[in-house]
């Protein structure tokens, strides 16, 4: 299992969080689970980086937090994308696609 994990490149965590929240408001735990699921267990988010990232994004005004009730009826902190967060997601996703395309081109050349 551990072998399939890869380390996240710098800065990509923010993008992943924003993308995950674009679908619906989520709490921290669900965000990490969702990323893990969608990436077929390749990407695993450590709590040690997830929560600081969430707080950072909130400070920047890209996401906002609200207390809600989870599936098992517990109080949980839900994060939601703000307007500027949506904009940020677009720019970052665009930049990321450009980068990966360029990377792929270079790597395939060899």
């Amino acid at each position, binding site marked *: 299992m551990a072998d399939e994990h890869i380390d996240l490149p710098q800065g990509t965590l923010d993008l992943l969080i924003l993308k995950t929240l674009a679908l619906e408001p989520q709490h921290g735990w669900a965000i990490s689970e969702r990323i893990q699921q969608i990436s077929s267990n390749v990407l695993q988010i450590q709590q040690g980086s997830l929560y600081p990232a969430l*707080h*950072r994004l909130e400070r920047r005004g890209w996401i906002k937090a609200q207390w809600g009730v989870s599936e098992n009826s517990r*109080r949980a902190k839900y994060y939601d994308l703000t307007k500027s967060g949506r904009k940020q997601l677009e720019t970052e996703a665009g930049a990321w696609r450009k980068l990966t395309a360029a990377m792929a081109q270079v790597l395939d050349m060899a």
Partner: protein
Amino acid sequence: MLTDVLYRFRALFHRNAMEDELDEELRFHFDEQVDKYVRSGLSRAEAVRRARLAFGGIEQLKDECRDARGVLFLETVLQDCRYALRMMRRYPAFTAMAVLLIGLGIGASTSMFSLVTASILRRAPYSDRLIYLWRVDKPQGGGNLRLPRGVLDIHDQSRSLERFAAYRGEWFLVNGPSGSERVGGYYVQPNWLTALGTVPARGRNFLPEEERSGRSDVVILSDALWKRMFNGNPSALGSRISVQARTSTIIGILPATFGVGTTPFDFDKAELFAPFLPDHATEDTGVFALANLRPAVSLVRAQSEIDSIVAGMAQRDPANWKNSSIELVTPTMQTRHFCGPTCVQAHRGIWLLFGAVGIVLLMACANVANLLLARSVGRRREFLIRAAIGCSGVRLLRQNLTESMLLFGCGGALGVLIAWWSTTLLAKVAAAYVETTEIELDGRVLAFSVAATLVTGLLFGLLPALRSAKGLLKGGLKEVSGFTSAPVERNLTRRLLVSSEFTLALVLLIGFGLLLRSFLYVESIPVGIWTDRLLTIDTTLVSPKYKDTAKKISFARVLLERVREIPGVEAAVLTSDLPLTGAGATNIQIEGMSSADPQGTEVRYISASPELFSTLGIPLLEGRTLSPHDTETAAPVVVINKSMGELFFPNGTAVGRRIRPGLPGEHLTWGDGKPPVWREIVGVVADVRQRNLEEDSRPVFYRPYFQGLDAPLSVAVRARSHADMPRVAQALRKTVREADPQQRWDEVKSMQQIIYDSESLSLRRPIVRLLGSFGLLAVILATAGLYAVLSYSVTERTREIGIRMALGASRFQVFGQIAFDTLRLTAPGAMIGVAVAYWLSSLLPSGHIDWSGSGVFLYGVSRSDAATYLSVVAVLFCVSLIATLVPARRAMRVDPAAALRHE
């Protein structure tokens, strides 16, 4: 950005709530993780263990979250501030001393800066939409501002100007409820007030028809005149007063703020306004004009439009317009332009004082830095312990800097308070010295004090902070407990600070010394007259009834007779201009000489009754003085002074020659409306300082008072004895009033008072006094700094001194050692100070005073004046010796046995 700040603040001030939320959020995550493991088949205990493993250090995670929230920075600043406040409370004497020093420095420089903004950097109170129309004469480039006839036509042709208003100055004779008064004012067009951006505070402005109808029986009063004449009674509005012997109705009263701080044409001294009449524009006296630029029209565009209009007028009316152009001038440009020689010198003096106050500020800060360094030695143990338990050097630096900045911040606040308190005092000193707007702590001044506090705080706070942080990295905890010599480097910094204080003090004191010697020298220059027991009173004869020369002369005769009869008066004289008050100047022609010959030098002219020379004690050198027989019917004569004789008649052939005022072809008229006549020179008298004490003697001629009269009139009397003077002054005041009850006279002044108030002395006195107080402050600061360093070094070296004494050194040798130390501290600083002072003194204007009276700072003393330099060095040497005595005494009393046990 805003969300960021709000978030940070919420994070900061709702810290507990946010901590709880963070706890809950993480616990939720943890529980979900555990549940997930349990679901996948692990036992609960095992699940918890795995989840803990996955979570890692929970506290570390929380810290990272806090960091991400951005509270750490602010929190640290607050923490540092709290700590710094605690420190300030723990060392109250130190804190009080430092805050007081900074407060004095910042306070003094802030109040000086408020003077700079109120005098030199003052803003014209009107908007830059306001422009003045100046006349510039083409050949010379100069202009007299009075516009050529037909200037009103510009108004009709211009599209870039609006609210055009012509105006003309006048002395009005006003007869109101408080008696009669001569009042300065203007005839103005109705737009005039509007263009200046003012409306009457009470009543109304002039109406266009009041100008057109040629009715001048409505007037507007200034606030000052209203208060003076009507005691500020609102019923004055609508009441009637006599203006120029015509009954006029008061229709408006201007706001008190009108005209404050304008030099040009003395708006603030203009107190009465009447409608401009059509024939004013055609009179020879000329008019002035102002207007507003239309919105969105640039000055350049308006100027080019005016140029083309003037070109057109020159074609139609060449007599008036051929050689003139009109220049548009903003209030700011005008204010700058009107800074004459006296104003320039006053401004230079203010810059000089500002520089001096800067030196005092630097010295105060150097002393504070010294105190901070000394204290950081005392707190070494504390710093080391903090470093040992994990405080980084940068963190320690930051905290040190926070402490200094807080200290400087308090000092700055105290400084602003001091400045605020001193503005009234400063305004009083400045009033006699320079024209200012109200001296106040406005935005610019406050910005200056904040900037000064920040810069000095960073500069002088960083130094000790760096030192203590750096010392830490090198030393170790071991230093704390045992005996160590003090870190050499830190001492070096302190010694350098004290040395530079001596440099600064020396520069300041030498500057003061040079200016003091100049002042004393100028004060000792003889005026050229016998000043003892002389009393004077002035007026200007401008009332319409004195336009008739015969009437004027008979009034003067009667006046002189009556003044002579005052009991206790030994001699009395009438003159147009007393010594040290200036005089009119004119070109002259000499009979039988070509026009180009008489040097082009202007000559001062004075009218005087015959007794002038005997009463003032001006010696006759050649020929005769004016005599009572030189009446209006006798042959026109003139007496010249020695300088005029030497300049125009170098062969000593002056007596018997004839001169006439004015250049050939120039159509001059004197006060009596007649052209000047040829006058025979009948005598030569000694020179008198007519305007400034410093100036070289200028050519002057004296006309008999009764052969044509000038408007200015001074009466001077010599009392028989000093005891008579108060009685004579009172009688003089009464006599001149009785001679013409409508005439307004100034106060009685003694000749000594005139000398005291003369530009030569009154422009120097405040500079010398203030520089003197700053110099005294500088000496105290330098001495205090020296004392602190010396007494610290004696304490530090107690053990060393003890050993020396145990080995046989005498008390005298110990004293010598301390004295030598003093010398090493002060001598290099003093030497640099002498060099710097010599270099800076070249910036002080020196040499000869010019015709206009533009002053010099250094006079009668060389900038390398050895006596000044030596005495300043001597004073500082003595003072530093005194600072040495106390620590040295302590050193000499060291008990070797005790010192050796000392740790």
